[in-house]
């Protein structure tokens, strides 16, 4: 727990028209302490057995998510399901390269997810830029902007690699190490500064719940 928790800094919400500021959150996210050990272990088990993916394909890698639903790979047997809305989903799969334009949507969707939330970064582009290392519009490291739990390298990774990545994510969750939500709250200012450095026209609220 950081000492920032006690004194929340009001958010600027700079990019918004004055009339809209009241519609959005004006307090930064806060950290949530885990429950008692045995309860948290049980909850973590439940969280790991019920991974709901946000159905938002952010890049070419999203095409590898589709086969997971089919009879051949069948992610349902691992408790993995796609959900259409960030409110209900707990896993955000970053599907490959993220352009600045997409990053805006990624940040907004990520912030709207209810914690604990997990991020699986898929493909080499999310790790170090991959083949888009010299592109004018593609960020190179997704972990500069949102916390990432699991990386799956490859261009593209096969669906089997995705399933292996989800198993790894489950292991991390069960070990209680998937605290991306708290990391984001703790380093909120750094993440926001990074986001605002690349998103030049910041016309959205600073935090969406």
């Amino acid at each position, binding site marked *: 727990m950081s000492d920032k928790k006690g004194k929340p800094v009001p958010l600027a919400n700079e990019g918004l028209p004055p009339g809209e500021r009241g519609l959005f959150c004006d307090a930064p996210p806060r950290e949530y302490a885990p429950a008692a050990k045995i309860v948290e272990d049980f909850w973590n088990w439940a969280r790991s057995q019920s991974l709901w993916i946000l159905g938002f394909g952010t890049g070419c890698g999203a095409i590898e998510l589709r086969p997971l639903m089919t009879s051949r790979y069948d992610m349902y047997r691992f408790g993995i399901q796609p959900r259409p809305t960030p409110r209900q989903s707990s896993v955000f799969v970053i599907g490959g390269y993220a352009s*600045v*334009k997409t990053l805006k949507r990624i940040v907004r969707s990520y912030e709207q997810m209810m914690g604990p939330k997990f991020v699986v970064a898929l493909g080499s582009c999310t790790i170090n*830029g991959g083949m888009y290392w010299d592109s*004018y519009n*593609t960020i190179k*490291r997704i972990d500069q902007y949102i916390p990432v739990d699991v990386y799956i390298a490859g261009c593209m990774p096969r669906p089997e690699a995705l399933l292996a990545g989800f198993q790894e994510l489950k292991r991390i969750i069960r070990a209680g190490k998937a605290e991306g939500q708290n990391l984001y709250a703790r380093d909120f200012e750094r993440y926001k500064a990074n986001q605002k450095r690349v998103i*030049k026209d910041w016309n959205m609220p600073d935090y969406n719940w």
Partner: protein
Amino acid sequence: MRELADMLSGRYGAREWHDQRKDLSSVTVDASKLRDVLTWLRDEAGYAHLAFATAVDEIERKVFRLTYTVHNYGTAHGILVHCEIDRDRPVMESIHRLWGQAWTYQREMREWYGIDFPGSPRVDEEFVLEGWEGPPMMRRDFDSLAYSDATYAERPGRETRDPAAYMKEKLYPEADA
């Protein structure tokens, strides 16, 4: 096709007629005549569809080459109409009154190459980029790598190899010997 080429060169001074394929030809006209040529092609010669419009940065010759693709559904034949404008003064006549969809292409060229089309609707709005502050990024003097290095954080430890040399070293090490 020959008579169409003669007609265009006779009326508008078109040059460099070239049949690329059976169904595709290209021709170059002066930028000041472009609108007349397209109007004539559309209204008289049956090339009623503007399929595409884009620009090419010919930095060595200090010009932008603009290409308008028109198509004749009656004869299934297309023409690429080229014209060149000065790279230092990139302004071109808008053709959005000839084809309604042209303003989208013009907005794209405005954003990507910095070519202005006065009078074209919404030409100054952003097209695919949001909040872009650098120079038009499809110009060839824009250094994408330098911009990327300056703007986006990099993960240390990335190595870049020449694919041909690396494959040779890994797969056929005996080839050098």
